[in-house]
């Protein structure tokens, strides 16, 4: 949690957001049916689907207002205005770590999981996420973020244009192979960053093992034991399937 002074400052911003949200929510609610028959039910105000949303909307606005008054009274609002005037775009170390976490989770969920082979997406994700924080160095984190972010950007471009489909049609599992190459590249890069530092090197080694073992355990357990179809079953999952069927 933040410090008290910071909190009051943040409260001012949140209170504005809350009040705006409440107004928007009320506006939406008032468009819901409140009379006449709807869905086979004779509508009265107390039956309307708008009933709870209205309560929520008013509640949020009232509490938002209370929050705002408190923030103004304790000087949070004034602090906020002051800080806006002396605004600067400098990101602290913990800010970089925050962005790094978001980058990892965001790309994993929105880019990798839905489009890339399940196994490969976990290996790629962990190959970035573990060394990025385990090296415990702001410089390394930034470098790895640039590398990882660059690869993801290329993938995004591939996937929003028809390029990915064309590639996959040309060569089976082309995108999976691309991620495989990127993963190898990422690991070589991380290994170079770890060079000459024994703690980093041992952490890199542990990280690499974890990055491979985790999906190696999870994929078969979910796919073949718990019978959960995976979001994207690309090259490696299909390979596992062939092995599974030939063993059975």
């Amino acid at each position, binding site marked *: 949690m*933040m410090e008290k002074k910071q909190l009051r400052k943040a409260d001012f911003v949140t209170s504005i957001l809350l009040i705006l949200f409440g107004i928007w929510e009320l506006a939406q609610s008032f468009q819901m049916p409140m009379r006449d028959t*709807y*869905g086979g*039910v004779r509508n009265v105000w107390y039956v309307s*689907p708008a009933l709870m949303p209205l309560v929520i909307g008013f509640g949020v606005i009232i509490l938002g207002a209370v*929050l705002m008054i408190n923030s103004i009274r304790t000087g949070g609002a004034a602090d906020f205005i002051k800080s806006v005037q002396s605004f600067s775009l400098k990101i602290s170390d913990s800010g970089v770590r925050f962005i790094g976490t978001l980058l990892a989770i965001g790309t994993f969920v929105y880019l990798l999981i839905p489009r890339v082979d399940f196994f490969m997406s976990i290996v790629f994700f962990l190959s970035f996420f573990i060394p990025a924080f385990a090296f415990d160095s702001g410089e390394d984190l930034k470098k790895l973020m640039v590398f990882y972010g660059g690869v993801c950007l290329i993938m995004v471009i591939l996937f929003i244009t028809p390029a990915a489909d064309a590639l996959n049609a040309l060569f089976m599992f082309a995108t999976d192979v691309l991620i495989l190459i990127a993963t190898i590249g990422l690991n070589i890069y991380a290994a170079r960053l770890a060079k000459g530092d024994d703690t980093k090197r041992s952490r890199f080694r542990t990280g690499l093992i974890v990055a491979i073992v*985790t999906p190696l355990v999870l994929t078969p357990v979910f796919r073949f034991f718990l019978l959960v179809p995976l979001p994207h079953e690309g090259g490696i999952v299909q390979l596992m399937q062939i092995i599974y069927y030939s063993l059975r």
Partner: protein
Amino acid sequence: MEALNALGGFFTSIGGLVADPINLLVLFGAVVMGIIFGATPGLTATLGVALLTTLTYGMNQSTAMIALLAIYVGGVYGGSYASILINIPGTAAAAATALDGYPIAMRGEGGRALGLTTTASAIGTIIGMIFVVSLSPLISELALQFTSFEFFLLAFFGIIISGTLTSPDLVYKGWIAGFLGLFLAMVGRDALQFYPRFTFGNSQLDGGLEVVPVLIGAFGIPQIIQVLKDKFVPKQAAKLDRIVPDFKTIGRNFKHIIRSALIGVGIGAVPGIGEDIAGWVSYGTAKNASKTPEQFGKGSYEAVVSTETANNACIGGAMIPLLSLGVPGSPPAAMLLGALMLHGVAPGPMLRIDHPGFIGEISAILLLASIAMWIAGMLLAKQVVKVLRIPPAIFMPIIAVLAVIGSYALGTKVFNLYLMVPVGIIAYFLTEMGYPIAPLVIGVILGPMADQNLRRGLMISGGSFAPIFTRPVALILFLVIVFTIVSQLPFYKRWMGDLRSRVAERRQARSSSGANKPE
């Protein structure tokens, strides 16, 4: 008479079940699987029962029931691991446990907490089971007293509880979080008239937000960000404290255990709601009843014991309407209903006649499952505590992967993941700004129930609130709510404090006067 019959079936069943080594193998296998399921963020008891339903199709009926009930018991209990050790509740049922369990683990007493919850969970399950054998017809009649207004009041009570989970900063921040949770619950087509609320024409939102992705988003993602961003290292236990049940603490918390078990059975018995709510209600009640409510939220053993007893007692409770009315008492029990039907058992009022001894068998399995859970828990807990020694930079990414798979696996919908991330980021900022997250999750869980039943109740009564005062169960619930609110008000606390000190004074005066005048 009926209870006696059930009891007879109960003892013969235990003998029969234990005699078969395969059954024992399945029992322990399923319990351990359940614990792993519960402990993994996002994988819930419901999912465990659902997945195992497919796998047990070929087994005979009693072996299948052993597997399903054992994974249910293990899953509800296993949720406490993740709650206590990493502050990410493994299941919604264990969310209340995280509030106090995590601070305990941070003090380096994680092992002791796990030992306690294991015993509390086992006791809870057994008490729930006793109710199944003895009072099942009576309780299922009581469950039939629940009409729309009672359901609404029950949901309302749960929401009021979020008022007792006060924020570390300003009191009303808890309310704001609660309202935001209620708003999330409004998304989707409303259950009465099918009007699409806040869906923006996206048919994926039509069915509403699922609890698991919201839960994992709201608790998991902020925790991952915080640990990595602030380079947070949990305090190591000076020495691995003993996991072995600490019977003294259990004894001291005995009244909490009994009360929580009753709450758990009661809530489980009400159709449609289950472990998740039982944990919160028990937490709120324990806080109100405790002599040291200020310790709640800071690592109180009373709180952890109360929530874990209640959510496990809920299992027995949920079996009651399932077996005697054919109405599942909780989400995992709904899966069990399907599994039972696959095995040719139609639960309902005629079960006693069609399959005499079946209720006894179910109780026997519950007892065996809770014993197996206790043994497995005692063996596992010591090992599990060691995860705290893994450096967070390696541990948290794995947790991230597990949380993602967990949120995906229940509905096998990638859309749930898309939802989880923004919820998590908002929850992170809210946590940073001193908002408690628990009311938000309670709002999401109880919102639809409150909304639907309030409107349906008013629809039936023609807009009148009179049924709240004329129906006995509704009136009791209403009075409990009023008491809960009043007990939060400052003047009541002052008055009670006055009263207590006056009583103490008088007692002291009497004892001192007694000392002066020997008989």
